[in-house]
């Protein structure tokens, strides 16, 4: 049985021979197999050196004539395959479009082509100008295009500043039915500083305690973004009701701080407990190690004693 590995080595040698490497170079690559490879490579070289046989021209002509004669007899017998009917190729969309363009008058044809070129060119120009720098003309082009877009497109109304909010305006009236705070007002934020300010008021006079406790700023959602809005005095009662009924969540900054402190304490406790457990484990391991060493020492002593006894016995014998 010939090993497969040798087949591969021989094939590699033949490939090297194809590339034009000399026999000595090839054998040097596989010095251990050189004795086996050399005669085979010589045979391959001899085979390669053989001239290609050239057929005679008359024989070539005669062979072709025989072939054509056979074809003629086969055609008489009708033994060839019958050719399939050739189907016309399907018309592509582009071809159809070009065809319809050709049917137009030259003026319309030119106008259509100009429109296509303008739109395509405009699209690519705008795409390229999006990354233009401020000084670049492309940037100016893109900026002006954006301005035109702003003029043409209707954007949703931006949130008004706190002072301009209708809640704080003098002609603001509470609705007859209480508003649904669960939808509009997502949360109430108790602002301790704001409360202190309100205690004294902006002009310095004292504010009644009832109002003091009930002045809040609350988070409202404008276009998906949370904005802090101060509650109007007229809304305080409604907000109280909403709070009592649990329609809104109160976010107290003080509560948040307390929670954070508690979490920190808990985390410290956990770390301390883990450290204690780790110390316990280390101590136990050290004790076990000491036990093992003591036992080993005892066993060694026993063995030495037994060996001494045996030696003494042998000496006596």
């Amino acid at each position, binding site marked *: 049985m010939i090993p497969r590995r040798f087949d591969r080595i021989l094939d590699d040698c033949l490939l090297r021979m194809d590339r034009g490497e000399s026999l000595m170079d090839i054998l040097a690559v596989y010095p251990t197999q050189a004795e086996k490879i050399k*005669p085979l490579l010589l045979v391959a070289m*001899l*085979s390669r050196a053989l001239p290609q046989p050239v057929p005679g021209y008359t024989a070539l002509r005669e*062979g072709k004539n025989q072939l054509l004669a056979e074809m003629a007899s086969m055609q008489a017998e009708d033994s060839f395959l019958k050719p399939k009917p050739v189907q016309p190729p399907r018309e592509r969309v582009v071809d159809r479009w070009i065809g319809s363009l050709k049917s137009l008058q030259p003026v319309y044809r030119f106008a259509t082509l100009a429109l296509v070129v303008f739109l395509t060119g405009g699209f690519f120009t705008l795409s390229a100008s999006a990354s233009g720098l401020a000084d670049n003309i492309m940037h100016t082009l893109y900026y002006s295009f954006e301005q035109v877009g702003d003029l043409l497109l209707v954007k949703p109304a931006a949130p008004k500043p706190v002072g301009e909010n209708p809640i704080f305006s003098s002609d603001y009236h509470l609705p007859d039915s209480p508003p649904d705070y669960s939808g509009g007002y997502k949360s109430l934020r108790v602002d301790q500083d704001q409360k202190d300010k309100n205690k004294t008021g902006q002009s310095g006079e004292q504010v009644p305690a009832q109002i003091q406790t009930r002045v809040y700023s609350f988070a409202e959602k404008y276009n998906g973004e949370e904005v802090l809005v101060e509650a109007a005095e007229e809304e305080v009662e409604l907000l109280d009701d909403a709070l009592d009924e649990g329609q809104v969540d109160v976010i107290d900054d003080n509560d948040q701080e307390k929670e954070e402190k508690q979490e920190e304490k808990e985390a410290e406790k956990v770390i301390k407990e883990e450290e204690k457990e780790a110390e316990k484990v280390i101590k136990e391991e050290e004790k076990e190690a000491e036990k093992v060493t003591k036992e080993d020492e005892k066993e060694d002593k026993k063995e030495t004693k037994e060996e001494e006894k045996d030696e003494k016995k042998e000496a006596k014998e």
Partner: protein
Amino acid sequence: MDINEKALLYRAQTGDRRAAETLYERYYLDIYTYLYYRVSDESTAEQFSAEVFVHMIRKLPQFTNHKITFLSWLYDIAGDLVDQKQPTYQPELFSAAMLGSDQDSESKTANDCFKLAIRHLNDQEKRIIVHRFVEGRSVKDLMKITNKSERAIQSLQHQALKSLQIALEREESL
């Protein structure tokens, strides 16, 4: 098999003379070379080559197996033809006639030795020697022609070279 050859074959299958002539001109030399080293005689190789293409055109309407190449199919036809015409081969009978009347056994050239030696190989070994070394085809080409794996081709070429080496030593000693 590329698209052009498929189209050419289809045209020949439907009786197109030009397509059949193109196939003949494209593959004649390959078949002739193979037959020349198989039968070791020029006139016999020419005669057999013509017959191979007659057989080819007869069988062509049934050639639908595109897993093997057309050339591989032609080689199979040529091999079958030689087996039919020369079923019992005796190499000793051919040597003197092959080398020509003027040459005696002492003035054998390397080519003549090769011609004589290759007759001692079996059909598979001959095919490998002719395709790989005489025609200079690559292992990948041989994989397509013989429909065998790379390992099988590597093993076969080793075996063929070994057999040819033994046969050459034998012929040189004679």
